[in-house]
């Protein structure tokens, strides 16, 4: 029996609205949960997204055609009532709540449940079908308290006044959350950033996210950055770019850092388990909370989460969408 919501490898098709959620190929009508490249692509005819997400897409892909959707506002497309509610993942991230034929479907996109000073907190919406991510859906993934991870970073910084701490953080979301988290922990020194972060940090600033004093690390002599924190995209950690830095301690902020071998593979000396995704307890706790009749799992460790649902007498299916999950994100 076919449902009015159809999972395809390239995205989720909402038939009565003739629209695709987070399609990985250009579509006439796209509903976009958030700005990360594996969810938001350029080239759609028209994209419905939050104001913040549209701004991010404009910055990344130069896309113009978009319909801004405010959190909590209802709109209709075909016979479907649609509402965007906060997902707590990155600035502008939304879950998409769809209602049709007396049935409510929630598509989470990516989400987390922890406090994040750069975006609105996740809002649980009870539903019939819950379409969830599963990036960290294994019980080994239990993210520690973010504040204590940031304290470890500051501890390493203060113990090595002649060096700098170079933190690899995904350019959209993680970098800004890390910087805001450092500010919240009382670190008010200038933070140096890689050129690739500059415009995204400015965009966050224009939406009222306070990041304090940021300086571009490019073109500075090494000694200017002694005793400072430098934030760069993960790809720059072991690349030529980092040669200019004063004897950096290499750190990386990611949920993957929970696994030793993952950290060692990337030559990370100071792994920081800071994630923008729900951990195992948050994924399973959220499913319990929204109590769906059925859980669909878009991407990640889908087998383990489906197994958990089954053993807790809940229906689940793995969708296996393509092109999701960038290891640098997380």
């Amino acid at each position, binding site marked *: 029996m076919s449902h009015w919501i159809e999972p395809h490898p390239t995205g989720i098709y909402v038939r009565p609205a003739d629209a695709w959620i987070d399609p990985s190929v250009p579509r006439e009508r796209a509903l976009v949960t958030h700005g990360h490249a594996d969810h938001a692509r350029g080239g759609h005819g028209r994209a419905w997204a939050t104001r913040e997400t549209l701004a991010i897409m404009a910055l990344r892909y130069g896309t113009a055609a978009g319909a801004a959707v405010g959190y909590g506002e209802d709109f209709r497309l075909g016979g479907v009532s649609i509402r965007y509610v906060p997902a707590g993942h990155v600035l502008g991230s939304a879950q998409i709540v769809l209602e049709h034929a007396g049935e409510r479907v929630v598509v989470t996109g990516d989400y987390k449940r922890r406090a994040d000073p750069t975006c609105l907190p996740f809002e649980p919406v009870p539903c019939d079908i819950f379409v969830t991510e599963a990036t960290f859906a*294994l019980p080994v993934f239990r993210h520690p308290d973010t504040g204590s991870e940031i304290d470890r970073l500051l501890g390493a910084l203060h113990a090595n006044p002649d060096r700098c701490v170079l933190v690899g953080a995904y350019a959209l979301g993680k970098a800004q959350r890390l910087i805001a988290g450092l500010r919240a922990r009382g670190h008010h020194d200038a933070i140096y950033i890689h050129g690739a972060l500059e415009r995204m940090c400015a965009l966050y600033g224009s939406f009222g996210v306070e990041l304090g004093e940021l300086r571009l690390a490019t073109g500075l002599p090494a000694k200017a950055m002694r005793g400072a924190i430098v934030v760069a995209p993960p790809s720059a950690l072991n690349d030529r770019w980092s040669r200019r830095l004063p004897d950096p301690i290499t750190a990386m902020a990611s949920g993957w850092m929970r696994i030793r071998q993952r950290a060692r593979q990337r030559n990370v000396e100071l792994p920081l388990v800071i994630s923008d995704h729900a951990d195992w307890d948050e994924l399973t706790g959220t499913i319990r909370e929204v109590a769906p009749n059925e859980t669909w799992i878009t991407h990640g460790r889908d087998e383990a989460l489906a197994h958990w649902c089954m053993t807790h007498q809940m229906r689940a299916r793995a969708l296996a969408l393509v092109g999701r999950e960038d290891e640098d994100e997380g």
Partner: protein
Amino acid sequence: MRSFSQLLDGLVYTRSRNGKLALIADYMRGTPDPDRGWALAALTGNLDLKAVKASAIGDMIRARVDPMLFEMSRDYVGDLAETVALLWPKGEETDDGSLTLSTVVERLHGLSRAEAPAALAAMMDHLDAPGRFALLKLATGGLRVGISARLARTGFARAFSLDVDDVEQLWHVLQPPYTPLFHWAEGRAERPDPGGMPFFRPFMLAHPLEAESIDLNAYAAEWKWDGIRVQIVGTGRETRLYSRAGDDITGSFPDIARAFSGDAVLDGELLVKGDYQGGEAASFNALQQRLGRKAVSAKMMNDYPAFVRLYDLLLEGRDDLRPLPWTVRRDRLETFMAQLDPERFDISALIEAPGFDALADLRAGTRDAAIEGVMLKKRDSPYVAGRKAALWYKWKRDPLTADCVMMYAQRGHGKRSSYYSDYTFGCWTEEGELLPVGKAYSGFTDEELKWLDRFVRTNTVNRFGPVREVEKSLVLEVAFDSIHDSKRHKSGLAMRFPRIARIRRDKPASEADTVEGLRRLVS
């Protein structure tokens, strides 16, 4: 337990040797007895608890976590102890501080196999994830944090500004948790008495010869043998063998240890011979069959019988000969030889040459696979630790060279992690294909490295994970000490000490050497 688990984590993530030493030193200074002693024992591989089998740990976790989820997790994480440490169900993810390392060690010590799982589980509940990981590694034996026993002892010595060789002397006398050692290190107690236990003495090493010529009246010449440097320490009751790094390698060469019963310390080169190799000292390749083995089979000892070619006599009985001139020690060594089994021990012969030029001719003319070059030893030199200027020189045989084509490149480690500094190179087959013949990551200057790195980045044709395949256009002149048959490589060849001698930008790749040509150099 918290400071110990933090130390382990630090050692796992820190790449530089100095960074590791600093971590160990800080821990040794800042941790009370007897915890730090147990930690030192664990790091040096002297803490063998083995209270629990891996299968028992699997059973423990399956009783607490859905077995399917455990299997999926283990597949993902890889390491059993790490998986269980992360999975362990527990309310608050904190270390409540109730368990010290000593408590853990004492509890694990007294356990039978039957009671171990319950006791272990009770301890797991008091720890955080890194603490549980450390506990499981201790309980199953084997920390594997990538440091040698010598490095751990060096870290200990650094903590208290001691000479590591002084620590080395006492090491085998003491038992964990080494409290008298720490008390002595902190100046609170007398130096422990090493008594009659065998221990390692630091080797005397040689500088490369750079001078044009040298006076053979002042220097004696002998062959430099291509085996592994070994120190034989006998007390009359017990004999131990130590490698150049000070590791105890007695277990790998029981045939040698059994054949020596004297009370003396000797310096020599460990080699293998036998009918298998035509009765003579064989190449390093043959010796490799015997290296790094914990247990040696009778067949192995029969096929590759080991012997030691002696260079020097350091101690005879209570008599420390190290301050005496080399000529005196050499006489004593020649006399000492009489009591040794000639099947297992011989003496490194002196090279008789009328002058330096004649010696140079002899060096150039030798084709012996087991000869690496010539040693020059000042006739009046005492035996001193390390490399001291103008006492001993090594004068290696001129390396062999071949023109090879760069095929693949990989990033280096540590300071070089941003450079493509490890190169795989190949030579031509008769069918006109390139076959990899070796890998090198040294020999070039910093400037050349920058150039090579740029070459790799701009000439990449393919990527396989961390490996880049490059355009087969760059000729590298590769120098190597010798080349041997090898079953491990597709080309059937293995180079010893390959390094990049020159970058031949002038030479077209098609004119590089052939695999057949290389094979003719096999010794």
